[in-house]
């Protein structure tokens, strides 16, 4: 499953870059992050809770920063997580590209490639697919909000 989306963020590019490269700040902008443990500079363990009506999926796993290309403004994260109760999980690769629009505005392009593993179920897959869209919208809104309140 692939997800491509462009967003305009009301932040200067270098400031947005440092926010996106700080996993704690990213976690603070993401709904459902329940735990975040730093293993080392490029590796984190955490838990993400995804809610849709009565549906609750709690994914535990790790996030790795595989590319921090500050010269070209490209960052790549890889994640690997499972919900032991639902008996399934996902592997994801997330690429972020930042293009300066104005001094205070940056275009953020996100490419997400996800593979679902195990028995996440016919019911779970379309739900997660839809949920990613709304989670990304909320994430961008939170990024903008963080800037406004900073």
């Amino acid at each position, binding site marked *: 499953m692939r997800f491509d989306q462009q967003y305009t963020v009301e932040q200067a590019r270098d400031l947005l870059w440092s926010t996106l490269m700080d996993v704690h700040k990213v976690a603070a902008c993401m709904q459902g992050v329940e735990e975040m443990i730093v293993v080392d500079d490029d590796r984190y363990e955490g838990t993400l809770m995804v809610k849709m*009506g009565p549906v609750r999926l709690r994914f535990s796993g790790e996030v790795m920063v595989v590319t921090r290309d500050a010269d070209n403004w490209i960052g790549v994260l890889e994640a690997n997580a499972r919900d032991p109760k639902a008996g399934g999980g996902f592997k994801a690769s997330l690429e972020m590209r930042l293009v300066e629009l104005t001094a205070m505005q940056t275009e953020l392009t996100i490419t997400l490639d996800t593979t679902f593993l195990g028995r996440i179920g016919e019911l779970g*897959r379309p739900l997660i697919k839809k949920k990613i869209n709304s989670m990304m919208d909320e994430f961008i809104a939170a990024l903008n909000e963080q800037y406004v309140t900073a």
Partner: protein
Amino acid sequence: MRDFQLDSPVDKPQTLQLLAAADDDTRLLAGGTGLLNLLKQRLASPGRLISLHRVTDLGGITLDGTTVTIGALERLIDIGEHPLIGERLPVLRDTLAEVASPRIRMMATLGGAVAHGDPNQDTPVALMALDAIVVAESRDGVTELPIAGFYRDYYETRLSPDQLVTAVRIPGDWHSSRFSHKKFTPGSREDYACVGVCVRLDFDDRNRCTDSRIVLGSVGPTVFRSRAAEELLAGKAITENLARQAAQIAANETDPVDDTRGSADYKRRMAGVWVRRCLLEAAGP
């Protein structure tokens, strides 16, 4: 499986009392045909279930003036077979006859079908074409919610955790309206729809469309009305060409996902095909 607390109130006041203390870890269980699937797949594991199987005061199908009111715990099979529904709301009767199998319809309730918020359910598609009103109650009072704005997202509605759907109200005299509906299932008849469509058209005496509803299910996170397609029809006679244009607009508004009932692209195309056919059937002789 996670342990959960099970409550079995016997009437509406007891249920509302239990719901007054409810949070989003509490779920109501009516016929169980929706929620139990989620529990069995372990996608949902609420800490508390309030079962409505002993509640006896949330039934009844009544007519007041031109408004039909259906109690939330009426089973789909009983609604479909009720003479009042056959006489006044044949489109609802015909839609219910196509919901899953008789065994499911023997268990599933109208309140459950509405409140579960599953975009693949057939019943809300017809209810939206009929401008139905969802009656929700809490201890704070009664709220009437038009079904057109009731759904927010997959399994998510405008209901708050303390609210109970007590009835569905369908006002209006639909005798002069023209309906057409189609549940398209590429696989078995009992499956969820690849796309579900219900169309309602009203005409003036010169055969121009005065009002319309074009409702689609199974092709987005919620059942929805294609208002842009409805607007295109306003004041016009329904020709083959106009139906095609409206269908294209409606298809563009869909947001389906790939699953066993087809790829997203296939579902979007089928949405266009069935909206067009329903429009022409409703407008036809």
